């Protein structure tokens, strides 16, 4: 392995955030093409089933994470690193922020139909989202966006990694079912009144 590969390896090891090719090139004072070759060599060396740590292309850069085989043990050591611990409310709030960012709490509450305060607070505490200034709308509410921790936790290389929203469009059958339920509720209300 070249000296540059060793340097890149060390940089990725000590960094707590994924590093982009540009950042690595600037620190090592090497041309981006050589850095990319070094990254290829390292990605090969730190692949799943080959090593306890895996070099992953994530969040617009490269970062080490625990391999699938070692992740459970690592998760036991760390305090709540799991995306699995997220409640349904937290996941829905996270999905809204991921697709609509930057987005304010009132906007999330409007979509979900219930207040999002505790879900937002939980996501902030886990560093999955962060504040991103204030909206121009009345009351100038704080708006939120997702973080690189979010991208890493869900293994996304940038927001392009999210599936297209059209994937979650309702089918005609879903529409019919929804409409039928709505009518049912309306009729029940009318009956009660």
């Amino acid at each position: 392995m070249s000296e540059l590969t060793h340097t890149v390896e060390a940089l990725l090891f000590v960094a707590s955030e994924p590093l982009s090719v540009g950042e690595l090139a600037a620190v090592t004072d090497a041309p981006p093409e050589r850095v990319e070759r070094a990254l290829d060599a390292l990605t090969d060396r730190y692949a799943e089933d080959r090593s306890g740590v895996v070099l992953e292309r994530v969040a617009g850069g490269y970062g080490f994470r625990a391999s699938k085989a070692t992740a459970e043990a690592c998760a036991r050591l760390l305090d709540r690193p799991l995306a699995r611990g997220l409640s349904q409310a937290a996941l829905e709030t996270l999905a809204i922020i991921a697709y609509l960012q930057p987005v304010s709490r009132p906007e999330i509450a409007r979509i979900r139909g219930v207040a999002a305060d505790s879900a937002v607070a939980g996501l902030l505490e886990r560093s999955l989202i962060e504040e991103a200034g204030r909206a121009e709308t009345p009351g100038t509410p704080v708006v939120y966006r997702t973080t690189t921790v979010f991208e890493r936790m869900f293994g996304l290389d940038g927001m392009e990694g999210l599936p297209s929203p059209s994937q979650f469009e309702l089918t005609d059958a879903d529409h019919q079912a929804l409409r039928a339920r709505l009518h049912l509720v309306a009729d029940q209300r009318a009956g009660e009144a």
Partner: protein
Amino acid sequence: MILADLALDLDVFQGPFDLLLALVLREEVELADVPIAEIVVAYVAAAYERDELDLESASEFLVLIAALLEIKVRQLFGDEFADDEDMTPEQAHAELMARLIEYRRFQGAAGWLGERGSEFPRVFRAGPAPLVPRPEPVVVEFSEDPWSLATCIDRLLIPPPVIDVSSVRRPLVPVETFVAHFREILRSRRSFQFEDAVAGLDRLAQAAAFLALLEMTKRGEVDPQQEDVFEPIHVAAAGAAVRESRAIA
């Protein structure tokens, strides 16, 4: 500060605050043209100049300003406020449907995130990671109140009263008494056993008797024999054989 004293100098109005209120209520001044922020600034400036804050007038001012603001907002955005009330059941239905559809889409996205997140934990360095709290050492539960411990220490820290021993007489046991006593015994018998001779005496007297024995040994009057440590001590007059004395005894 009395609100009536608050003089205003606005584009649309010049005069005391309460007159402006009256004119607004009689709709002789268009509220939309009254810059409320300027009234607030004038009030704060006046209060600052007088260097006093009368809470009663301040709250009255706040209530009036809030009411003015609400009236003004209703005048400016009246139509938008009326929106919800004017909606027909069909419109409300369509609106609700649209919201539910939007919500369902995000539920779908949340489901995708949930599945993705639970494939396997993606663990990575995220700065100094907070570690799981280490198990606490086992603590034995005491039913005692810690204050009782403090009370005990408190009691122990008080020095006990000094006991007056001036009236206690020190028993004096002169060694010479025992020397005389042992001589007396040896006058009638050739030997005796030390333990028997001192039986019934207190420790101090026994010690004095032993010193007397040592003294007599030193003077060459007696010849004590002991077979082993803590064994009985046989005392015979000097020159007399112990075995002989034993046989006699």
